[in-house]
Each structure stands twice: as C-alpha cells, then as structure tokens.
C-alpha cells in the first residue's frame, strides 16, 4: 500500500513531508511517483524549489485540496472572432490574501507552480501578475518589473501606428 505521505528534498536541502493528496496536485511530483512505483521510497528531489516556497505551495494545496480536479477545457471556436481575454478576477478571498505578497514571493511561487505543474496555482499567479500589469503605462510596467527600455523611437512609433490601426479596426 502506498505511503500516505511523501518526502521531498528542496533546493536548500530541507526534507519536507507532504501528503500524497497534495503531492498529486503537482503533475511533476505525480509523474515522479508513478515512475518510481515499486522502487525504494526515497525523498523526491525538487532542486528548483526552496523549502520556504514549497511551504507556500503546500498552503495553497491545503486550501484547495477539495477543489474539483481541473478539467482540460476543450476550446470552442470563437465564432465572433472578437478579442477575448481570460477573466483575471480572483474571487476567492483566501487566494486574494495569498497573492497579497511581495513580488519576489509571487515570482518564486509562480516559478515553483510552473515547475511543479500545479495548474490552479500557476493560473492564480498569472492572474495576479496580469492584474499587476493592467492599467499601467509602459514606463510604469518597466519600473515595476525592472525592465530596460530597449525599444527605439521607430519601434514605438510603429507600435503606436499599429495600435491606431487596431482601434480603427475594432
């Protein structure tokens, strides 16, 4: 019978126990578990995730452990062919508090969610970053995300022109 808890080793050499249920919310760990069926139970190495971040991920998994499994949506034809962005509203109060963190933490969780392939968490982080981007000017975006302005004046003029065409087109 499979053990009810899984050991993982984080990038800072911490061994952390997490429940099988939480572990299986990560497609990455789940795949490793499936690959190691019958093998000696060793701690699963997670070299890209620190213990601090993993605990955050576990927190999120704990809160969402009873959520229905994400269903791979079959994309329907966008018959109207209009611009259709995904809804970035974060409705869960707990999630709102969860993402109310420094950008450093958000980045780490995003990277961890991406690496561990925890879909719900990954989407939450993406939503949050998208909300961070929304309503900001290019200057504000660069400042917020520490990005260099490497566009030439010609680039910017072309983009303004393109944007004008887009607006006229819509």
């Amino acid at each position, binding site marked *: 019978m499979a053990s009810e808890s899984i050991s993982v080793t984080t990038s800072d050499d911490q061994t952390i126990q997490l429940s099988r249920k939480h572990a299986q919310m990560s497609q990455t760990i789940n795949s490793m578990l499936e690959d190691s069926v019958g093998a000696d139970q060793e701690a699963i190495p997670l070299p890209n995730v620190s213990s601090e971040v993993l605990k955050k991920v576990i927190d999120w998994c704990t809160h969402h452990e009873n959520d229905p499994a994400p269903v791979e949506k079959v*994309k329907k034809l966008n018959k109207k*062919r209009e611009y259709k962005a995904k809804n970035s509203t974060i409705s869960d109060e707990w999630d709102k508090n969860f993402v109310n963190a420094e950008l450093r933490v958000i*980045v780490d969780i995003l990277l961890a969610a991406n690496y561990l392939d925890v879909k719900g968490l990954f989407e939450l982080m993406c939503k949050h970053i998208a909300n961070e*981007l929304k309503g900001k000017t*290019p200057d504000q975006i660069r400042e917020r995300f520490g990005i260099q302005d*490497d566009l030439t004046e*010609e680039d910017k003029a072309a983009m303004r022109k393109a944007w004008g065409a887009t607006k006229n087109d819509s």
Partner: protein
Amino acid sequence: MMQQEQHIEEFNWLELAPEVWFNIFEYLDPLSLHQCQSSCQAFHEWATSETLWEKLCRKYYTRRSNWYPSAKDTDEIKVDKTPVNDLPGRLSQVRLTNLLEDSSDDELYEWAELPPGSQMEDVSVQKGWRETFRQLSEIKLDGDCVYWLMRGAVAEDPLSAPIGGILNGTLSLEEEDSYSQVKVMKCRGTGLGGMFQVHCPVMGNFMCISYPQISYTAIPTRTVSIYNQTRHGYASVVWMSEWQTSSGTGVCSKYSMSDESILQVIRQTNIVDTMRDMHRFAGQWILNVHTLGDEPTSYRLKITPYPNSSGFMGRLVVGSSFDQTAVGVIWDDMIAMAFSDPNREEERGQYSIIGQVDEVEGHELYQRFSGYVSQGSTAGTFWAEREKQM
C-alpha cells in the same frame, strides 16, 4: 528585507519562459496588452506572437480570408469555366511578383494585411524589409485558412543557406468545433529553393515549394503553388511568392475554394495550380517541354522526386547554355515547376510552368504523358516520361 529587495532586483522577468508570459498576457485586455508590448522588445515579441493571438482574437484572420474569394462567395463570382487548356496567357494577368517588387514596405504590409504589431511589421519597420534575417516562419491559422510567413534563404551565400529546417512547427486548426493538430513537417530543400510539407488531419497533406532564385539579384522570384483536395470537396490552394535580393522572405497563404473558383485564382495569381489526388511516385522522370512562344524552346529536365511526396527537384537543361535547377510538383494530371531562364531578359530570374496532362500513354518500360503548359505569356506543350517501376 534588504536581501529580498536585492533578490527581486536580480530577478530578470524576461527570463520567464515565453509560455508563462503567453499565459499572463491571455488575461490582458487589448489596451493593457498594447502597453505591455510597448515596454520592451521581448514583451513586444511575445505580445504579438501568433501563439497568443490565436487564442485572443481571430478578427484579423477573418479580414485576410476576405482577401480572396472564399468558397461561400463563389456564387457571386463569374467563374470562367473555360477549360484550362483553352486559356493561353491567362497566367500573366496578375503580376503578383511585380506587385511585390514595386511596392514600398508600407504597401506590402497593407497588401499582406498582417495584423498590426505582427512580426512581419517588426521586420519591415525595424530592420528593413529585405534585410537578412533568419527566423522561424510564422504560421497563422483560422478555420480552413492557413497563413504563414516564410523567412527564407539567407544572404551571403544562398547556395549554402538551407531553407530546410527553418520551417518547422506545430499549430492548431479549428474547423467547426473540433481542434486538430496541424504539423508543419520538416522542410526539405537547398539554398536554391525549399519544399515543405504540411500535415493536417482534417485537410490531409499539402505541400509547398519555394524557389528563391539564386543569382540575378533583385528579381523577385515566383513560386509554385500547391493544392489539396479536402475531405469537404474544396480544393485548398496554397500560393507562395518569394523573392530574393540578398535575402528573402515570402508570404504564403492557404485557403479553401470550390473547384469552380480555382480557375479564377489561376487567372489571378499566375502561380497556382490544382491537384486532385496527390500522386506519389518514385524514380526519375525526363520532362521535355516545348514552348510555342516567340522563341520556341525545348527543355529537358531530369528530375529526382522527393521520397514520399509529389515534389521533385532536378536539373533543367536547355541546349548547352542553360543549366538550371528547378523545383516542382507533379500530380497525376498536373505539373507545376519553377526555374529561371537567364537567357530571356524579360523572364530573367524567374520562370514557371504550370501544365495539365491530357494524355498518358503506357509503354513497356515507361509511361509518357503529354499536355499543355503556360509560361508567362507563352504557351506550349510538353511531354514527359517516367520509367516504370520494375
């Protein structure tokens, strides 16, 4: 706290995988996306990528599909049902390549009807339309329309600049409510030209051949076009135009039309052909083309087909002075190929033949077919032999 701030300063957001940014950008409204793409080059690239726009909006593609008559428009088009063989000169009615050659970048851009902010504009505006570049092709797909931007042969030595390998990718096809994967199979070709095959579970295989001319600079080259018969009975027409100065680029699109409207297209574009069933063949063909223009010419072409395809590539020899490589496609009753004839100033740099086989004779050791060809404003006949498989 100091340590944390240092960490975030050290983190380069642009190192996030593009797929992550695509996912983030999918949550943005158009204005926010525009603001993002105006922040830096990387954001611009990602925010205008087809991967993202395929998910966000298809309006632009709709515009493009209106560019040519679509299948639903065929009733409104006066379709010339004259048999292909009775339409001499039809192929020169629209000089597509001249359009490309004579147009400014802005006109080309408008002509191509590319979405604002697309990569093509990027290249056009920022680096110069015909400047050397080496990038993956862009592929746009909408319903039964496929568009792709081919960025081809590289400058310094076209002979050593393979097109093969740069056309590679996967894209999604939406048709009705189903999704299918369309795979652009690896391109085959040389610096002389390229051939790539696309596999789509819905539409089947189709193939495209490009033939950027190798010398004779600044002459836009013409390409052969490929067709397919979809399961719905529509022939999907691929046309491609490619030209080369010191480098090359091209625009290729695919769309569905009814059989009737193909003739219309043939008359319009000069570079299209039709096929019924893609004919796979092996072995070598000897193709002799005799034209009936002002300067009757015979061509002898020894062609080597690509395995598992209906394309070929070979040496085209005209007398002792003209030795040129050609690429083309043969179907069971159609043939199309492109090559250049340096001896004809007005055709210099490009030449194409599109023919229809109207007779096939069986012999003990070979098959011979003959038919009609048109080259620019001239027309003629050809025959070809294929060795029978032993």
